[in-house]
């Protein structure tokens, strides 16, 4: 796939990747009450890496991602599963939402919660899953 990347695409993807990643984190965090959430945010992040993959090649994309996509998938699955466990310790059923709002000076209230952990898990699962498949297809091509 190396021949596909034009100069414009390569330059653009360098700028777009960080923007898309930032946007994906924004989507992830606003997702509880407004449109967004882990799934769509994970897809946005994966789009950024996929764009980079089209512009460059699979090897460089792998280097750029800080971990193997399969590990991301595993960590995400683990986070999403374990997000259901804390309620058990206080005698509630699995996946009962628990909230720990904290005041951060200058930023306002931040709501830490088990749904947030779950959403981060979904984010990682989607990012890892999509990148595993896309990288596998790209490497088969090369």
């Amino acid at each position: 796939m190396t021949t596909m990347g034009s100069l414009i695409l390569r330059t653009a993807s360098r700028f777009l990747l960080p923007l898309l990643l930032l946007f994906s984190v924004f989507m992830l965090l606003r997702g509880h009450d407004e449109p967004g959430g882990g799934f769509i945010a994970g897809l946005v992040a994966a789009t950024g890496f996929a764009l980079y993959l089209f512009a460059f090649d699979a090897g460089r994309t792998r280097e750029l991602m800080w971990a193997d996509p399969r590990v991301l998938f595993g960590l995400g699955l683990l986070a999403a599963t374990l997000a259901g466990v804390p309620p058990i310790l206080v005698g509630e059923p699995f996946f009962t939402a628990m909230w720990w709002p904290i005041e951060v000076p200058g930023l306002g209230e931040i709501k830490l919660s088990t749904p947030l952990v779950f959403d981060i898990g979904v984010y990682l699962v989607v990012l890892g899953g999509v990148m595993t498949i896309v990288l596998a297809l790209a490497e088969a091509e090369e």
Partner: protein
Amino acid sequence: MNPEVALPILIPFVAGSLSLVFFRSNAAQRWIGVIGTGALLVSSLVLLYNTWSHGVLVMEMGNWPAPFGIVLVSDLLGAIMTVLAGIMGFAVAVYSLPSISADHETFGYYPLTHLLLAGVCGAFLTGDIFNLYVWVEVLLIASFGLLILGGERGQMEGAVKYVTLNLFSSIMLLAGVGLTYGMTGTLNMADLAVKLPEVENQGLVTVVAMLFLVSFGIKSAAFPLFFWLPASYHTPPVAVSALFAGLLTKVGVYALYRFFTLLFSHDVGYTHELLLWMAGFTMITGVLGAAAHYEMRRILSFHIVSQIGYMIMGLALYTPLALIGGVFYIVHHIIVKANLFLVAGVVYFLRGSYELKEVGGVWHTRPWLGLLFLVPAMSLAGIPPLSGFFGKYMLIRAGVEVESWGIVLVALVVGLLTLFSMVKIWAEAFWKAQPEETGERARRFEAALPQSAVVLMVLPIIGLAAITVFIGLGAQPIYAIANAAAAQLLDSSDYIEAVLGVRP
């Protein structure tokens, strides 16, 4: 609030994600595999014990009350199936240690196995029909991955058919779920059991029931929807085949049992008559297909189809004894069928082929393996005092009681033909001498197999054979559990009360 209901789903998920995190280390994945499935087995036994002593257990996920949220429900049938999933998972995990090649391990064999077990346990424990669809998809995706592990030509060809037909059946399930929701406005099984009989247009209910019948018929490989099974089950590594043979089609059978006792028992004269015909033809086509083959895994695959017929027969006759027999038969079948695949795998590792014409003489070098094959083989054919005899006896007696002579005759004849197939494998693989043309390869394979690998492969076989003998000789406790499970299936008021809190 019963945390043990969710554990059989959570444990494989945690084990699966941990083995993905450590995917670079095969050794770590193996340890996680054995410990994870062991923990699953223990948790499922605890679940069965608690369900036995306290009645139907319910957990409302996320503290959303039924019928609005998703509930996990463990009645006796669900708990029994979960225990069987635990036994299979543990046996196959031990068997995989020597038999799965390092290539397959790095390709994600262990994470996929855990994911499959999570999907299977979820399907057994959920009390919500849409959630059932989700779990079925989870186990399907895992099974797709396992099926193409290795990527050989036969696997790809088998996988195309397997994937297409199973996706088609999932869509039928999804369409049925949608239509059910449109009719009743609920997805909770217990709530549906109350509301479905109140639907004005009962003809429409029967139509939806047929959608579910087609969907689960494909998943359980019942006649005339079974063609994908013999085309694909013999292609993956043998440990995967054993896991599939033990668990996957049984999810379809379990769903049939659940749906056609709890939800669609309003027009038994029509739906269960249809099931009876399916059962009869499933038995016959399966066993005849097996008779025509000379490859061990293909013979065993066709016998899965044929045995599914017995299980559906128990549901179709719909008397207390028939349901007891059906549940008993499922328990017996899962253990025995997986064990036969495991033995066939050992024969392969000793001789280098699954073709009966190319192997032989195992009895002369390893007579104990022959004995270990005979236990599940004779049990499958229904020879007393092994486990298959009691299952068949109850089913046939139930058939005699309602004077359904056709199905009784079919069940008896198919039993005989099963014996023929098993004796064929025994005579060819174990008794006759190793053919000269393939003798060189057989010696090479046998020499390459370390003693420790043989021990690890035979341990689960011995364990499963011991369970088979126990179910046969000590049939009384299993019968008692099956009896109670069948009673819960026939009278769903316990189930409904446990979920909704009111007696119907």
